[in-house]
């Protein structure tokens, strides 16, 4: 939870503060306010919990209690390539948990966390609606069906390589100018 805010996020915080003032100061607004923040900044940094508590006139710990109860709220920034591993019934039966474990081991983070470079984050989801392809993992926007533990490394490698290629391309363009 103790990740530094990026400059973009600092700016978003100001935006949030402005939006916050449009909400009435009553505790019933807690969840809508948290949802608004997450829409703006994609997660709930500790700073925002404090802002919300002050605005609504309740204790920070109450905000924290409500926010941690619901699955929809996250406390870590999503990675550039969010990985969602399905653990719905079909994927569970076809050992989706092993896929999840493999991602966790390869990236050295656990489910719900983000790598320090903010490239990857892992999340578990319950059914993405393509059970025939179980077990399923979603990386970014791409659905990967019939996942196998052995495919995990390849997928991550591909993203790494794509990133490197992009960078090389960029350098080429810059030096070509």
């Amino acid at each position, binding site marked *: 939870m103790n990740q530094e805010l990026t400059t973009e996020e600092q700016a978003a915080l100001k935006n949030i503060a402005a939006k916050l003032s449009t909400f009435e100061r009553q505790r019933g607004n807690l969840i809508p306010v948290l949802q608004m923040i997450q829409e703006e900044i994609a997660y709930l940094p500790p700073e925002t*919990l*404090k802002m919300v*508590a002050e605005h609504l006139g*309740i*204790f*920070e*710990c*109450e*905000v*924290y*209690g409500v926010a*941690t*109860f619901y699955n929809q709220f996250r406390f870590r920034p999503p990675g550039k390539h969010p990985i969602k591993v399905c653990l719905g019934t079909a994927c569970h039966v076809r050992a989706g948990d092993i896929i999840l474990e493999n991602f966790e081991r390869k990236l050295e983070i656990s489910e719900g966390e983000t790598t320090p470079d903010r490239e990857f984050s892992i999340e578990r989801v319950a059914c993405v609606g393509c059970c025939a392809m179980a077990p399923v993992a979603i990386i970014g926007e791409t659905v990967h069906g019939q996942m196998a533990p052995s495919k995990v490394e390849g997928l991550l490698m591909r993203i790494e390589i794509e990133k490197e290629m992009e960078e090389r391309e960029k350098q080429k363009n810059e030096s070509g100018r």
Partner: protein
Amino acid sequence: MPKLLVDNKEIEVKEGTTLLQACLDNGIYIPNLCYLESMDDPSASCRMCFVEIEGEEKPITSCTVTVKDDMVVKTDTLSVRRLHRTAFRLLLSVHHVDCKNCHVNKKCELQRIAKYLEVGLKPKHLEQHLKEPDIDQDHPFLDYYPNRCVLCGKCIHICRKKHGQSVLTFAKRGFDTVISSYGKNDVSSLACEKCVVCVDICPVGALILKEAQE
């Protein structure tokens, strides 16, 4: 004043009393962990205080029932005892049983209930499920032991009762649920070191003053 029959004993209590309170006031013990008389709306979350009431189909938690005239109640039937024991065993399956090193040893409500229900403190048929880490030292004056906590919520209730708002809260969900004191500003605003109602009310010694341990 309503008169009722509990375990063949006639008792008379004030209107509006909860059944659990009525029994406790009249020397009839029903195991309970999360109930306080000052609660307007008991949560019945410990699932310990089941009784059978004539006319009701199933056993019912006595803390959520208000006494009525001519109620006939049984507190020690087989099915009620089974519910007591099961609820208790489930609580112990997430409890780090280490009484020797626990500061409430011999004053612990769990020990009392274990003796009353004749259930061992080490669960035999259930898997142990403990939380990590074993101790939460976030609060400036209190240490919290999630593996001792029975999540009765008394500390939250009593803090809110006394201060209007509580610096303690339930956080997370399901097996991961803990009591949390998130937010440093709240704690300083209440002067916790002079209060400690939460430590005193805890039935199991999950909250403890930092200095008391040394």
